[in-house]
């Protein structure tokens, strides 16, 4: 696909410069590096800081969720590439308000190991207490008995929202970590790709799919899915997204929030076509939907396809989901 870009090498820094210029009252960069982005009012005294990080190309993930009620900071890497240890460390340091910092991000090797090194450094050099929670919501990436090795996809947005809401109430680091874990224990995702995307520095599509093919369970960087199949109807696709989730977590009779997410290229219209079917299926399982999120929450550049995330609610998760949040890409008042 054609890109609107100057020099591909500058794709990310120019994007970040534009983003910082667009939201000066809300965001700032630290350590003289546009890749280290925090809330303009950071550090918030006495509040646990929540830091995410990962590759670019997934807007609004990650940095789009930096703001009141969600993330305090984000270390931003190149397209689909990890930020550096230094960037993670500087971001961590900048959001520490004395109550410690939670590193909350997807289970990708580079991110995991760099965040670990950054946490060590923050502890060693600045005595900042850092806790870590990995997002592992993608049921397609490993069976239930190896659930901790799953990769993180759109479910991380729920974790940002829930943990961010509790942190805003000045809960302790242990509490914020615990609620993030509790949220993720109740979060499952599954995606389907109908077409690839193009990383600007690479210039060609990340993978190829036949005109009549789709890839079930594909990852957000084009990592292989569960299987490749013939392109199906919206209803059939939705069924393939919800079934593995129903098989993985007991939802019967419960209340859930759902996120139907376009990977970028798929228009919102088609998400609503799928949502119609989702309600039918959930109704059959006696599951009721609270606060559906339908839109682009975690993308892969212009990839065609969609993902479904389900968050099984209890009263505490519901309360925190309802809490207001305000970031450049996510604005939620009190009303449903």
């Amino acid at each position: 696909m054609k890109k609107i870009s100057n020099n591909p090498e500058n794709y990310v820094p120019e994007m970040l410069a534009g983003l910082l210029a667009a939201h000066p009252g809300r965001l700032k960069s630290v350590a003289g590096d546009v890749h280290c982005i925090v809330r303009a009012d950071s550090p918030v005294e006495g509040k646990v800081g929540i830091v995410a990080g990962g590759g670019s190309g997934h807007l609004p993930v990650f940095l789009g969720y930096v703001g009141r009620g969600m993330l305090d900071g984000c270390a931003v890497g190149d397209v689909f590439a990890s930020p550096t240890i230094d960037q993670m460390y500087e971001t961590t340091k900048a959001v520490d308000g004395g109550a410690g910092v939670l590193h909350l991000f997807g289970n990708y090797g580079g991110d995991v190991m760099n965040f670990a090194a950054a946490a060590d450094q923050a502890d060693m050099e600045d005595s900042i207490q850092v806790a870590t929670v990995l997002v592992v919501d993608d049921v397609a990436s490993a069976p239930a008995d190896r659930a901790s090795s799953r990769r993180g996809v759109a479910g991380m947005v729920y974790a940002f929202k829930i943990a961010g809401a509790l942190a805003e109430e000045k809960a302790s680091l242990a509490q914020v970590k615990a609620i993030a874990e509790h949220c993720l224990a109740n979060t499952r995702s599954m995606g389907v790709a109908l077409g690839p995307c193009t990383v600007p520095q690479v210039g060609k599509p990340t993978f190829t799919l036949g005109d009549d093919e789709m890839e079930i369970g594909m990852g957000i960087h084009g990592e292989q899915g569960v299987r490749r199949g013939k392109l199906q109807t919206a209803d059939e696709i939705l069924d393939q997204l919800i079934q593995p989730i129903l098989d993985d977590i007991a939802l019967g009779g419960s209340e859930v929030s759902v996120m139907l997410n376009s990977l970028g290229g798929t228009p919102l219209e088609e998400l609503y076509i799928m949502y119609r079917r989702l309600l039918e299926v959930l109704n059959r399982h006696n599951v009721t939907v609270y606060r559906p999120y339908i839109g682009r929450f975690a993308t892969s550049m212009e990839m065609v396809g969609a993902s479904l995330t389900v968050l099984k609610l209890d009263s505490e998760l519901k309360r925190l989901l309802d809490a207001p949040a305000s970031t450049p890409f996510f604005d939620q008042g009190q009303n449903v």
Partner: protein
Amino acid sequence: MTTTLDTKQIKALMGAVADDLMAHKDDLAALDAELGDGDLGRTIERGFIAIKEALTGTLPDDIGRALFQLGKTFSNAAPSSFGALYGTALMKSGTALKDKLTVTLPECADAIQAALDALIERGKAQVGDKTMLDAIAPAITAMRAALADSGDDVSAAVVLRAAAVAAQHGADETANLQSKIGRASWQGERSTGKKDPGAQAIAYMFAAVADYLEAQL
């Protein structure tokens, strides 16, 4: 006489490794595309360009601090799984060799062992999980065996050639393993039959060192 390497030789070795790995970046990228996301070529390029740059600048005089700094440089320039781990490996080897202006071959083996231990701690993988560990572990074993056979005055070239052969063997063997860690693990059983790109990168490194040392003889 005990064989030793000094800071200057270590730096030269690192330069040789950098040149050799950059020459292999495309085939490493291809292996990573099969099993992961195909960015290992870019990691290698960015990381070793930064290493080459650091080598032309001012590095500490002692081997340990020099390696430590090169490790930090690599990780920050190439912040991927491989970049983080390879940087960790250099940093931990460096910690093991702190203050040393020369290093013996057994010390070398110990430093690499320290790196391997650190990788296991950081990466949570085990030998046999189809990762770079599967090239490093046999290389250490082979170094120790070569040293045990021939005594302290064996040439560095001989010991490192043994390591290189073992590392390549280990890398080749990863094709028979099912991945337990990282991106490749998401493929489950489909990962069997494909060689681990990180292990191959390690094998190239040992071979580059052996080549360089043999050429010095």
